[in-house]
């Protein structure tokens, strides 16, 4: 490893390879393909939060001219794995509709209007059941239980049935730690469920042939995962189902599973024609995964000098209508930013009558860290200490035993905090009704399975195939790493995302893993290709392969042969490849680990209108350790985008349910994501503490940025408004209620 090495390509900002298609409207996203003879599908969804499906009469819909297939859960078979069965039943209700928007039937017809008309002809008889949508209510002994006997063995006996998972992390003795503190603060927080809010609705085009082979085109973060799930649901061999990932119009974790793909496949199989299925925005909100809502108790002890003596978090997450295990991510993240002798984080995952949660950028972490950071901010204020100093004093660093167990290697939290403290933003004066907030954040980052195949073309260019959808410019960073390793210009590399039949398995694009893991595979594939080119050059010169080496895009003779032959460039070797042994390629399949955790610090100024509670974000700066920024513009973009999603979560985004258990804001009008005029520029400071686990020092950077904004904005709003709030979003009515209560 040589992390100090000088790079030629890494750190530059070339135009992304898929850019021209995307600025000219030619790039093909999920809904942008059409097949000859294609049918249009629509899904009928439950209007009830919880209801037994007594009967479904599809005869009138089937009789409508132009309708080619109608399906219900009866059209799906049995599957062995519990997880896949839940996914299937989330795609199509099995006897019981578990949430408002749960699919109960689907049609495929010759046009959108016929499909819409057919939906109205399906008669579903429901018997409504009691429902629950709030996490604390769902944990009560008398709450309606969504699925009997689905509690994970971690759950303590006697716990109410909606609690499906329990976890407990930490070390030391928190009671002793609290006893030793000068001050202990205990607070309860609530955060709303938010949606990933990708602009592209779920979309797919399925084509099942009469021979049982199938093609599926879809917008996904992981087409191999789609293949895995769909093949099992459809009872197909994986080899018979070819899945192609379209360009993806945003995912943020929300496209790491399937919602409509099995439905389209089942319709296509029944109709014998290609079927296109596209969710409406309303369906996206009602029936694709939001993140968890949370109810949390946080207790932290601190000494007057700012040293934290102990921390204890109890996290209760609401994750919708099926069993899941996600609170552990929050419990492990909650105190990860601090070096604590006594720490404990417990978590409970709870089912409710809401759509099943799915990952959303650093899933589980933002709300837990919000709650912890809010209490730390309050304690710092209690002792009149600088909030950054308190965090530096307690910060995790190399050698810290983390709150979730392992000891940290080289990490960049202290560097990020010091950069924030030294930044002009931190000392800039504040105006009337303005406040400043700061928060740390953390995310694990993953490696995982990956496949890359690289062909060296005879003209000296390179084609690279990888298996992870490009969700934010990864073709550029992969091409850059290939160019760096091969020593050729970036423009000579063409990276594409292969379908499931063209390159080996790759895990889902999640865990901020793509630049890290595909990067390692790319470097290794390039190394394999270089080794072959060294062989070809050695053969050409008639010398031993050990007597050549690869320097800067060319093979050079070494040792006593040095200078004997002019070096052979990649292009020269490639040009003769047909004569020296055939095509040259390199490939790598692996499962790299050591992804390297990432820390960030956010600094924000807000202004709160004391008469209306309207919050304006005045200034925002993100500091984040990214290890090594391959393409700094896209790294900054991740930091900015994550910050703004966090701002939305903090201020206005929320799933709003009525007493009837129905979602009241299933659209962008009332699910309020930040718009351009809501925001200032988002300044970024990239910190580079290389990850010892990657040849270029790369750490994942995509997810960490959504973790700190909730508490940072929270602290800034509280300072500006002169009140304390313990609930997200801090919407104007809540801010005004707090201000009025203080009066």
């Amino acid at each position: 490893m040589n992390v100090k090495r000088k790079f030629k390509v890494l750190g530059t900002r070339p135009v992304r390879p898929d850019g021209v298609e995307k600025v000219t409207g030619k790039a093909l996203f999920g809904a942008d393909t059409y097949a000859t003879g294609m049918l249009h599908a629509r899904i009928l969804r439950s209007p009830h939060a919880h209801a037994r499906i007594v009967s479904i009469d599809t005869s009138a819909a089937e009789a409508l001219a132009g309708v080619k297939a109608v399906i219900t859960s009866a059209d799906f078979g049995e599957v062995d794995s519990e997880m896949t069965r839940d996914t299937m039943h989330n795609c199509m209700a099995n006897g019981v509709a578990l949430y408002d928007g749960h699919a109960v039937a689907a049609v495929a017809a010759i046009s959108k209007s016929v499909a819409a008309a057919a939906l109205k002809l399906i008669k579903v008889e429901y018997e409504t059941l009691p429902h629950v949508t709030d996490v604390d209510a769902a944990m009560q002994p008398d709450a309606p239980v969504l699925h009997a006997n689905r509690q994970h063995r971690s759950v303590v006996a006697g716990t109410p049935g909606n609690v499906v998972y329990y976890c407990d992390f930490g070390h030391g003795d928190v009671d002793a730690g609290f006893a030793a503190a000068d001050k202990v603060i205990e607070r309860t927080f609530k955060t709303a469920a938010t949606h990933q809010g990708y602009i592209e609705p779920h979309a797919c085009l399925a084509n099942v042939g009469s021979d049982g082979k199938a093609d599926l085109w879809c917008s996904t973060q992981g087409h191999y995962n789609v293949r895995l799930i769909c093949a099992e649901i459809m009872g197909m061999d994986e080899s018979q189902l070819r899945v192609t990932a379209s360009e993806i119009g945003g995912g943020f974790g929300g496209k790491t599973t399937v919602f409509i793909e099995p439905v389209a496949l089942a319709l296509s199989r029944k109709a014998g024609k290609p079927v296109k299925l596209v969710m409406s925005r309303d369906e996206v909100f009602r029936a694709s995964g939001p993140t968890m809502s949370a109810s949390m108790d946080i207790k932290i002890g601190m000494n007057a000098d700012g040293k934290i003596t102990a921390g204890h978090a109890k996290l209760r997450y609401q994750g919708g209508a099926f069993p899941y295990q996600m609170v552990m991510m929050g419990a492990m993240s909650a105190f990860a930013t601090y070096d604590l002798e006594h720490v404990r984080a417990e978590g409970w995952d709870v089912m409710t009558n809401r759509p099943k949660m799915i990952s959303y950028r650093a899933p589980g972490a933002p709300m837990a860290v919000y709650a912890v950071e809010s209490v730390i901010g309050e304690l710092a204020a209690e002792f009149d200490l600088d909030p950054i100093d308190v965090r530096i004093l307690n910060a995790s660093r190399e050698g810290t035993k983390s709150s979730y167990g392992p000891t940290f290697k080289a990490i960049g939290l202290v560097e990020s905090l010091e950069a924030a403290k030294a930044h002009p933003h931190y000392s800039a004066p504040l105006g009337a009704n303005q406040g400043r907030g700061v928060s740390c954040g953390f995310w694990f980052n993953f490696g995982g399975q990956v496949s890359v195949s690289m062909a060296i073309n005879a003209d000296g260019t390179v084609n690279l195939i990888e298996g992870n959808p490009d969700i934010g410019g990864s073709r550029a960073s992969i091409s850059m790493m290939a160019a760096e390793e091969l020593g050729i210009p970036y423009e000579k590399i063409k990276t594409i995302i292969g379908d499931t039949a063209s390159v080996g398995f790759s895990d889902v694009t999640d865990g901020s893993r793509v630049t890290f893991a595909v990067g390692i595979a790319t470097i290794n594939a390039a190394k394999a290709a270089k080794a072959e080119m060294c062989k070809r050059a050695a053969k050409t010169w008639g010398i031993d392969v050990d007597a050549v080496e690869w320097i800067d895009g060319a093979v050079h003779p070494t040792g006593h042969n040095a200078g004997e032959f002019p070096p052979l460039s990649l292009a020269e070797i490639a040009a003769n490849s047909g004569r020296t042994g055939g095509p040259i390629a390199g490939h790598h399949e692996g499962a790299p680990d050591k992804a390297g955790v990432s820390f960030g610090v956010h600094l924000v100024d807000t202004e709160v209108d004391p008469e209306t509670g309207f919050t304006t974000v005045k200034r925002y700066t993100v500091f984040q350790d990214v290890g090594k920024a391959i393409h700094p513009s896209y790294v900054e973009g991740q930091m900015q985008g994550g910050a703004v999603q966090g701002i939305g979560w903090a201020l206005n985004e929320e799933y709003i349910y009525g007493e009837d258990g129905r979602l009241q804001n299933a659209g962008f009008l009332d699910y309020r994501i930040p718009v351009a005029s809501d925001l200032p520029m988002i300044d970024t400071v990239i910190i580079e503490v290389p990850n010892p686990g990657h040849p270029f020092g790369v750490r994942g950077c995509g997810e960490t940025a959504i973790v700190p904004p909730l508490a940072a904005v929270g602290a800034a709003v509280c300072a500006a408004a002169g009140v304390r709030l313990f609930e997200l979003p801090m919407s104007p009515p809540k801010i005004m209620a707090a201000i009025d209560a203080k009066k």
Partner: protein
Amino acid sequence: MSKIHVSTEINGDQVEFLCETDETLLDVLRDQLGLTGAKEGCGTGDCGACSVTVDGRLVCSCLVLGAEVEGSAVTTIEGMADGDALHPLQRHLLEGAALQCGICTPGVLVAAKALLDKNPDPSEEELRYWLAGNLCRCTGYDKIIRSVMTAAAEMRGEKS
């Protein structure tokens, strides 16, 4: 149900199509004319991904019926570049890394061009309000705003 015959101009070409009465211009562009650059992010005028201009006016094509553009002139993202030469806005969004997933990009470009056609020298605030109806979930808007401002300066003949 009988369809409506519509003659219109799209990106300078004379085009005829038949549409259902409730079919939106967005559906016509995408499903009938092969112009899939305009995207449906919401179908209710809240996201701007389907932005086009009709007779020079910026609109959401999901809020226009296909039948309404009889005799009009429509421009879409597909009409923005001059052959292989990208419009300065397209070039600057690319160079400024102002797109991550790229789904909002066509709408942003069409909307930004409509602004610069009307006001070649917008302030950052004017630009942010003009683009408030173009939702982007990836970028936090920072690089979009910077890139449009840079493109505008170049189009005004200012050196960057």
